[in-house]
């Protein structure tokens, strides 16, 4: 049952095949493309600030899929039907977390290649940026899932989730972008640790949230 659920969730959220389309990735590349136009083509300035811009773009791209992530299936009664078949809310949310990350983490990492080229990020810096995004996107996905589940039953949920994600994602941003400034791998370890903790927490928090949403 869990594999059927994962397949369904992936089909739902995957770029190009699902209804979610490739919007977050396109958005991500668009930011990287616009930035040189805004600050000018000076390669030094771009290389110095580009990494931070990529991180901010990734963070904003993480907000885009949140609206449909949980609320839609609550309205459908989808989670209720699974519940009747003995699937725990935590399991539903764990599967959703995997599907959500797969549908936006790896595409974002791939999109970093053209984005880095546009921003003149090369060598060691590029490597740290890539590793940072690989370590950080699961955490962003976990925060996103928790927020989506918590705001699912609110009318202004979509707007609110964007606002909520930003402060919660700050630790990932600070260590991820900080690793670029100092060119070290220790900060990357912190990004990975924060991500792991969030990934471990998210299914339980989101599961409790959709259980609570049922009661009203």
């Amino acid at each position, binding site marked *: 049952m869990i594999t059927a659920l994962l397949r369904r969730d992936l089909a739902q959220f995957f770029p190009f095949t699902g209804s979610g389309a490739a919007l977050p990735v396109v958005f991500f590349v668009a930011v990287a493309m616009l930035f040189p136009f805004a600050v000018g083509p000076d390669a030094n300035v771009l290389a110095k600030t580009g990494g931070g811009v990529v991180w901010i773009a990734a963070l904003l791209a993480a907000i885009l899929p949140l609206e449909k992530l949980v609320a839609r299936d609550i309205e*459908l009664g*989808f989670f*209720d*039907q699974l519940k009747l*078949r003995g699937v725990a809310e935590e399991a539903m949310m764990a599967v959703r977390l995997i599907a959500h990350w797969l549908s936006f983490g790896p595409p974002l990492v791939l999109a970093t290649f053209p984005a880095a080229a546009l921003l003149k990020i090369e060598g060691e810096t590029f490597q740290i940026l890539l590793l940072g995004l690989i370590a950080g996107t699961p955490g962003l996905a976990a925060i996103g899932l928790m927020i989506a589940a918590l705001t699912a039953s609110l009318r202004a949920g979509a707007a609110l989730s964007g606002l909520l994600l930003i402060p919660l994602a700050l630790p990932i941003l600070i260590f991820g972008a900080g690793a670029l400034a100092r060119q070290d791998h220790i900060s990357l370890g912190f990004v990975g640790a924060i991500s792991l903790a969030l990934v471990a927490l998210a299914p339980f928090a989101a599961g409790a949230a959709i259980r609570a949403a049922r009661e009203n």
Partner: protein
Amino acid sequence: MQVSPPSLIADNLACRRGDRLLFRRLSFTLEAGAACHVTGANGAGKTTLIRAVAGLTTPYAGSVTRNGALALLEERTGLDPDLPLGRALAFWFGVDNAAEGDAIMARLRLEALAEVPVRYLSTGQKKRAALARVLGQSAPVWLLDEPLSGLDTVSQSLVSTLVREHCEAGGIALIASHQPLDVPGMTRFAIEEFAPHGADA
């Protein structure tokens, strides 16, 4: 399917919506083969009762004892609106290990709609699709919330037939509907009988 026969027992159930008590001291016992029709006006608490019996919400007081797997039919179909009906149902048939998906769809006259995305279906067609999902589940206990709304007369009598067959096979059906159903031996109660006095105050 299971060794022990199914049963559904509500004991002294009370449910609220917001601050308002909808019903209290509601008790019933349904054994294998029993069908029960809950009637009541809109907003009287039929859906609340069904969801509490399903275990989806916590009742304000009392308890529900369930024996056997539950199948729930409600206004929300649980079918992906963007998928063609055939694939949306195939997901649930797969989850429920339903072998006769095609036969179920034929029974509910859904084959012609297999390629139509769920969001384009009419209310009655969606209801029939949800019924197909319930049939595929082959659960001994059926909880049907307004199974007749939106259906034409042919489909309405089909619902009665399906419930009858389900109960003859030893299943249990709890049906909340303000419309009449033709199932022999079915018990009936109005949810208003359990409304607290002065509920409107």
